[in-house]
């Protein structure tokens, strides 16, 4: 196991653990207002201090982890669930009109960055965590479709696939039996990277008010609230920011570590 893998696993599990524990225990009620105690710097009572309403930052960070992980995970799930079959199909019918339609559709979605999709959705349906998930999820579809298709195309040229075809196996069966297991490592690694990008995107959307709405705590919202107070209470901005950095760094290290461990030749797309 490489250092990347160990450190990445440690950081990611730390955040995941915090999110899970928050379901049963937090030091304080994350939503309880306590105005007399507002804007406390971190100390032994409030490990991460309190915000302008006197809410405990540590509890809010724990619950906020839940929001971040849920949004990013579901968005990656959408991207994989739709993108991988599309990529496999496009590769299995390379050069056909189906391939052409799938790839042109991909290009089109790529022209809408996730923030632009979020703006469109929000303009129509209003802001909310679900719309953030959809926006990030839609953006993930072409990412997975593209890398799946690319990897599958090289596999289709391999002789073991030709041998399977000679044995009378059809495109769907070959995709499931031979192609998918051989692109699984790539998908795991790319999935980890997309997960970390999803965390960043969710934070950005919540920051501009297009993501999770109050009272659901989210790291991006905490940063937006902190903005006017950063000069006299810098911990309000520092702590949610560090939470995001630790999570994203952990996931990226995990992705790199997994790649080195599973197959160093894997190329991930990072954009």
């Amino acid at each position, binding site marked *: 196991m490489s250092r990347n893998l160990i450190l990445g696993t440690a950081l990611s599990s730390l955040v995941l653990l915090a999110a899970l524990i928050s379901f049963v225990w937090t030091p304080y009620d994350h939503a309880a207002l306590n105005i007399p105690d507002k804007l406390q710097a971190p100390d032994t009572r409030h490990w991460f201090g309190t915000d302008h309403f006197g809410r405990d930052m540590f509890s809010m960070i724990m619950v906020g982890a839940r929001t971040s992980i849920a949004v990013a995970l579901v968005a990656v799930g959408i991207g994989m669930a739709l993108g991988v079959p599309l990529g496999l199909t496009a590769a299995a019918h390379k050069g056909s009109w189906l391939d052409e339609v799938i790839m042109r559709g991909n290009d089109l979605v790529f022209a809408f960055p996730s923030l632009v999709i979020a703006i469109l959705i929000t303009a129509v349906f209003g802001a909310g965590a679900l719309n953030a998930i959809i926006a990030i999820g839609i953006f993930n579809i072409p990412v997975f479709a593209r890398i799946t298709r690319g990897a599958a195309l090289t596999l289709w040229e391999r002789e073991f696939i030709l041998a399977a075809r000679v044995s009378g196996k059809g495109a769907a069966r070959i995709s499931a039996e031979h192609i998918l297991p051989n692109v699984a490592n790539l998908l795991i690694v790319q999935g980890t990277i997309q997960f970390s990008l999803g965390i960043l995107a969710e*934070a950005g959307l919540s920051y*501009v008010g297009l993501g999770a709405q109050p009272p659901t705590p989210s790291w991006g919202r905490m940063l937006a609230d902190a903005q006017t107070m950063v000069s006299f209470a810098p911990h309000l*901005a520092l702590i949610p*920011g560090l939470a995001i*950095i630790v999570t994203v760094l952990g996931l990226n290290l995990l992705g790199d570590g997994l790649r080195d461990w599973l197959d160093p030749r894997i190329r991930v797309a990072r954009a």
Partner: protein
Amino acid sequence: MLRYALKRLLSLILSLAVASVVIFTVIEVAPGDPASFMLGVNAQEDTLAALRAELGLDASKVQRYFNWVGGMLAGDFGTSYTYRTPVSQMIADRLWVSLPLALFALTLSTLIAFPAGIYAAARRGKPGDLTVMGATQLGIAVPNFWFAMMLVLIFAINLRWFNAGGFAGWDKGFWTGLHSLTLPAIALALPQAAILARVMRSSLLDILGEDFMRTARAKGLSRRQALWRHGVRNALIPVLTIIGLQFSFLLAGSIIIEQVFYLPGLGRLVFQAISARDLIVVESVVMLLVFAVITVNFLVDLAYAAVDPRLRSRT
């Protein structure tokens, strides 16, 4: 070469056409009638009808789509529901903030990433490489708007080198304008530079393993000469793709960064428009962003051909 360019141009136009249909359809789905939104719930039915006619809302959907697209082609983006001013004028004002910001950031990002990536690749596995890689790993993990807040805290609030926000405007001189875009551009550029540096490094490392690099060494080129004369230009091919993608991220990212620095750019415009349900503005800004992304990718395709002779001869 010309044929290649024409083919890309055709695909550009096609993408734009499809994108405009998608955007128009999505906005059409939006609930609510702009006219009643503008005039309030107590408006008279005949006043509403008059306003609808004025806004062109009484035409059929297909008719309205072609009016919208035709207008845009002529530089007319319609009239804002809330401000009653031409959208094109509003966009043009804001574009003078957002576009320079994205370009400034792209330049910074490239200027930082290329040397860092080449340096790291040339010293693969050595302390210099590990330092650059560690820094980029951190750079990727930092959200740009948080980084922007930290820049404000340090350089504007504590050191007072820059203003914490706002835009001085270009009419006070180029350098004054650039000065107020410096912190936002750095905040946008550094995380992107981290990604770009990693791509540059891995692309160059791939090239260093190619047969023709060994051929170059066999001719008597030193490691360094081979890297610069044969490595960098070949490594640019995948890097260009990422630069193209990054432009769209920078443009989108600038929408968020504008919030941190209170810059009067497209981002501010679009958020004001959303809260006022001024959908014609949202529609036009989104179309403009998508137009920018597609156009930049078209330019990247042309740049490919300039770098790679194999594309030039292919049709």
